[in-house]
């Protein structure tokens, strides 16, 4: 069984220091003071995507060590990818700096986390479009099944060229930056939430899945991401992407929002939706992929 012990998010508002529910009116990403969050590292050449992942990981570790590091990123470092492509197109492939090539690799983030937290354990990186984080979380659940502790998170970075491309593609939404990480273990003691399951499947299977889990609006609450659940019968939920913006791994933000809700007794309503008094489970339903949905189910 997978229990969440710590979380950390960098997103709109100062979520890094004060959490998500205290920052629901934040409009711009607020980066923490990385010099304090990531000690002893030369940050000058580190891209935001690595800094976000590393700062969140260090916070989730809180000085402890874990058996594994699992990271999800939809696009990795587009900044370095674009930089390296441009360098060989513009230079006509003469002498190139390898630095952007090295930093463009998707697992740069998980690699840097291992390097700077001296973690020699399990290490991997998932990239499955809008459901990248759900794949990483499933691996983290497997690790806890195997008796291991793990930090797992999602991170994506918005850069100008990406939004130029999205505008040209006539995308309804532009991309934001953001990252959330979690510390999971098989131990219930002192945990703040339990991950009941994490599923990736086709959109049309949502109703039957909710039935299979006996979803009840009286006891359960839905956080839905990247579009509402309205096309499904009688189902609505708070759209977490209204708060964190759109990025491929923003269901990790939804997960932290859910964990905070499970641990807060003084909120009865969120964005017009009543939260059940005896809140049992939260379903984080992610619609950011065209064909697939991700469903993360958590309880206290």
């Amino acid at each position: 069984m997978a229990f969440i012990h710590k979380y950390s998010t960098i997103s709109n508002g100062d979520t890094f220091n004060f959490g998500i529910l205290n920052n629901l009116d934040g409009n711009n990403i607020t980066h923490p003071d990385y010099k304090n969050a990531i000690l002893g590292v030369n940050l000058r050449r580190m891209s935001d995507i690595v800094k976000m992942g590393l700062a969140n990981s260090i916070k989730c570790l809180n000085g402890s060590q874990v058996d594994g590091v699992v990271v999800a990123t939809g696009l990795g470092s587009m900044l370095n990818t674009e930089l390296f492509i441009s360098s060989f197109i513009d230079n006509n492939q003469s002498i190139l700096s390898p630095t952007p090539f090295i930093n463009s690799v998707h697992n740069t983030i998980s690699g840097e986390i291992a390097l700077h937290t001296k973690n020699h354990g399990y290490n991997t990186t998932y990239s499955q479009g809008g459901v990248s984080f759900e794949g990483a979380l499933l691996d983290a659940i497997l690790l806890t099944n195997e008796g291991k502790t793990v930090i797992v998170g999602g991170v994506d970075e918005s850069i100008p060229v990406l939004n130029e491309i999205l505008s040209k593609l006539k995308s309804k939404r532009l991309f934001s930056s953001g990252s959330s990480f979690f510390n999971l273990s098989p131990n219930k003691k002192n945990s703040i939430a339990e991950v009941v399951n994490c599923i990736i499947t086709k959109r049309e299977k949502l109703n039957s899945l909710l039935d299979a889990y006996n979803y009840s609006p009286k006891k359960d609450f839905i956080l839905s991401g990247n579009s509402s659940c309205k096309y499904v019968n009688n189902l609505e939920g708070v759209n977490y992407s209204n708060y964190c913006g759109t990025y491929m791994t923003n269901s990790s933000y939804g997960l932290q929002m859910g964990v905070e809700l499970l641990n807060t007794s003084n909120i009865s309503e969120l964005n017009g939706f009543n939260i059940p008094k005896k809140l049992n489970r939260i379903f984080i339903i992610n619609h950011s992929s065209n064909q697939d949905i991700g469903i993360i189910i958590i309880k206290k």
Partner: protein
Amino acid sequence: MKVSVTGLGIVSAIGMNLEENHNSLKTLKSGISRIELLSNLDKAFLGGEIKLTNKQLAEIAFLNEENECLPRSLLLSLIATKQAWGDSKPSKSIRTAIIGSTTIGGMDLTEDYFKTKRNIHSLENHPCSVVTDYLSDYFQLDGFKTTISTACSSSANGIMLGARMIKNNFADRVLVVGGDALTHFTVNGFNSLLIYDSELCKPFDNNRKGLNLGEAAACVVLENEKSISITKNKKIATVLGWGNANDAYHQTASSPNGEGAQKAMQLALVEAKLSPSKIDYVNAHGTATSNNDLSEGRAIESIFGESQLFSSTKGYTGHTLAAAGIVEFIYSILSIETNTLFPLLNYNEKMSELKIRPISELKTDVVIKRVLSNSFGFGGNNTTLIIGE
């Protein structure tokens, strides 16, 4: 729960199917040649290039003309997956997952866009998930799907995840796919790191100068007993063990004594409940870079001692990046099935730092029951798989 391998598919520079790959390996035929189809490179590069255009690949995959502008890694992956999947069907009573692995996804189309600024929609194929999404639809799968991108260990991690999903009863059947085509991005990238040999690569040779890249895709089908009882598929091999550890030493280089590599191999041996003496052959990562082969060689020596049989097949295919792990997993199965060990190519002189001596001639006088295969990558990634009969 036992993890059986029941389907294999492979396309590489040494063959467009399993039999062709096997024939090339046992006749010591390399697929490395001057890279030609990937045009406009600023100098001559040697690589394991598949000498078929995207149009020809689309024809082999029975795709119609409009699909010619799909990423090359997708075309290669589709051909390999068709071979492994055969006439299998999705089934309500078999929980089937698909795990892709790639480093470049649709990078070839992205490069084209940045060069020409034409067809912006080709950028929709950029994400690494492009291959897995396509295959999942093509084979009508509706279960768990994900893509692993851990550089050169990607598909080894894919097999490891698939095996763990079956062992933990999260899936009954898993398709693991790994595919990377040659791109300007990767050829220029490894060249910028000054580890791209301008001659044929020489893994584990004292005078090795670096790697040659290659392109390949491969697919394996993993099943538990319940799934096999329904599919009636023949068991080809067993995934006995797996280990993943991080070197935590440097972003691209391996530590001098290969601590991460040693740890990954030890973890895999523990998972398989085997002592090192039970491993008949080590299929090394052996990229022919100065750094990898020394670090890996020392790690193998420290775990297995001086008489361990080992070699690398990078001289046949080139380094196929994300596909390397699954390609070599399949070659390891060929070694077990035919009791044959495929030697290094281009090997002349033993490395002065090592006592162990790699296999430099075809060996057919051996009994091979268990093979350990390594895949290492940027980011300190070290993954080891152990394959049995």
